[in-house]
């Protein structure tokens, strides 16, 4: 998965921002690079505060391509993301994107696709859903039959963004405390409802991804997972955010790939979850 489009560094305009839960924010930004962005890619957010040097990498959640907008849903995890949460309509923020490889959308053609998201891994799944049904325009495109793409979403407790998905597709829903959907994790829901799939895209906590990868492997379903790691540069220079893989990196000749540029999306059988 190489040949990512060159990223753009720019000052973006905040279109809107709202809180979805106590610590989960939904942000719409107007950026120039929407045409080259794909689901599963991320954007680096630079803070104005010079004492916080490193960009905050946030996955693209959704697209409004005609208006050149990207949506981000993120958790306030520390002081940096708290500062981002204060951005209001009309404010500007320095960003770089799109970064990383994104999901191989072209593999969806002719398949029944299951999008599996857990917790803050749910947002990028929405972009996959939106783009799967986008009108063919500037790219080689495909048309999927209705209901070809379904979502399986796992939450700790009260769901967020649920209507974003349920308005567009069937959702297999699980919560750990049983407050909505099936009690258990996302695989509990998938197994109980025997969700059909020929292709899986997943994003979520590492333990969930490992379980999804083995579920897919047992059934010979091609599966792609998006990994997360502490990141510094975001462009592949510092080698801070590597993931263990089974195959060797073609340049570095070691079984580590850079999450920021070789990922964040990896073919699940190549990921070393041990």
């Amino acid at each position, binding site marked *: 998965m190489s040949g990512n489009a060159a990223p753009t560094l720019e000052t973006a305009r905040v279109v809107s921002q709202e809180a979805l839960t106590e610590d989960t924010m939904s942000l719409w930004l107007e950026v120039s690079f929407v045409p080259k962005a794909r689901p599963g890619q991320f954007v680096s957010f630079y803070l104005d505060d010079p004492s916080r040097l490193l960009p905050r990498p946030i996955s693209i959640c959704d697209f409004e391509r005609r208006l050149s907008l990207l949506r981000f849903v993120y958790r306030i995890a520390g002081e940096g993301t708290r500062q981002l949460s204060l951005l209001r309509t009309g404010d500007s923020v320095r960003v770089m994107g799109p970064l990383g490889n994104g999901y191989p959308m072209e593999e969806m053609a002719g398949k029944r696709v299951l999008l599996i998201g857990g917790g803050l891994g749910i947002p990028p799944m929405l972009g996959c859903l939106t783009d799967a049904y986008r009108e063919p325009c500037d790219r080689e495109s495909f048309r999927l039959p209705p209901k070809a793409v379904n979502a399986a979403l796992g939450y700790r407790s009260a769901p967020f963004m649920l209507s974003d998905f349920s308005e567009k597709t069937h959702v297999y829903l699980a919560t750990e405390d049983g407050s909505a959907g099936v009690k258990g994790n996302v695989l509990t829901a998938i197994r109980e409802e025997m969700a059909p799939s020929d292709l899986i895209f997943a994003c979520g906590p590492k333990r969930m991804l490992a379980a999804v990868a083995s579920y897919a492997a047992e059934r010979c379903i091609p599966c792609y997972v998006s990994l997360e790691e502490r990141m510094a540069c975001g462009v592949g220079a510092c080698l801070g955010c*590597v993931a263990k893989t089974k195959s060797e990196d073609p340049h570095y000749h070691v079984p580590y790939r850079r999450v920021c540029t070789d990922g964040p999306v990896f073919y699940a059988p190549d990921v070393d979850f041990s």
Partner: protein
Amino acid sequence: MRPDLSVCIAGVTLKNPVMTASGTFGSGKEYGAFFDISRLGAVVTKGIAPVPWKGNPVPRVAETPSGMLNAIGLQGPGVDTFMAEDLPYLAQYGVPVIANVCGHSEEEYLTVVEKLSDTDVSMLEINVSCPNVREGGIAFGTDPGKVCAITQAVKKITKKPVIIKLSPNVTDIRETAKAAEAGGADCVSLINTLIGMKIDVRTRRFILANRTGGLSGPAIHPVAVRMVYDVSHAVGIPVIGMGGISTAEDALEMILAGATGIAVGTAFFHDPQAAVKVIEGMEVYLAEQKISSVRELVGAVS
């Protein structure tokens, strides 16, 4: 008239004093999308070992106030891949390339030096100061006797100018600088990162898998300026200054303290165009101050 930013270090002329700090600039390709690499005074590569090195487990990086910790552990493709893939890519920019050399033993350093001596690299920077590898690196760089010995051994087998990169994690950095000079070094560069640690109080675990890491960024800049000042008064060879340089003002401070060249590193992570902004800011400063050459400023603090 446009101010003259050019400097000469160990017989190599750089069109300006601004370089990339080793390990922050990848193989060079990564930042090519954000600015014209040929504008740099020199590119300093990531540490080059005789064979591919895996580096440390993750997490390898953590943000700290005005800085960051890293414990990458010198992951790198090895000298053969560097020569086959990275060097030809950098050569197309016509910018001097300074190869940073690392090894677990003297023999390993020499293997790399020998191979690179037959290439077009302009200078060799010997990394005796990486805090994140068990053997080699800082194990050499904190002992003046070992610094002198490795410098002599390298100088014996190469005609390339040799820079010794010094560690700040010593009692008196002037001692290791003098040892490098006594061993025949053409130049010293400083500072490498300061060893630090960060703990997650909620999990009560170390943030970095390596437990300790190297602190870089604006937080260490005053320490670096002081060490550059001390070293430039202790040795007669040129000094390349680095440590938290993010702006032209930071770079000029380092030059006034005694550095002939300077390097931008961690600042790239906050602004991929930081090095170009440093160059442009220095030009503006020299023009405003009516100083014809940056060379007039080297060590000019009083």
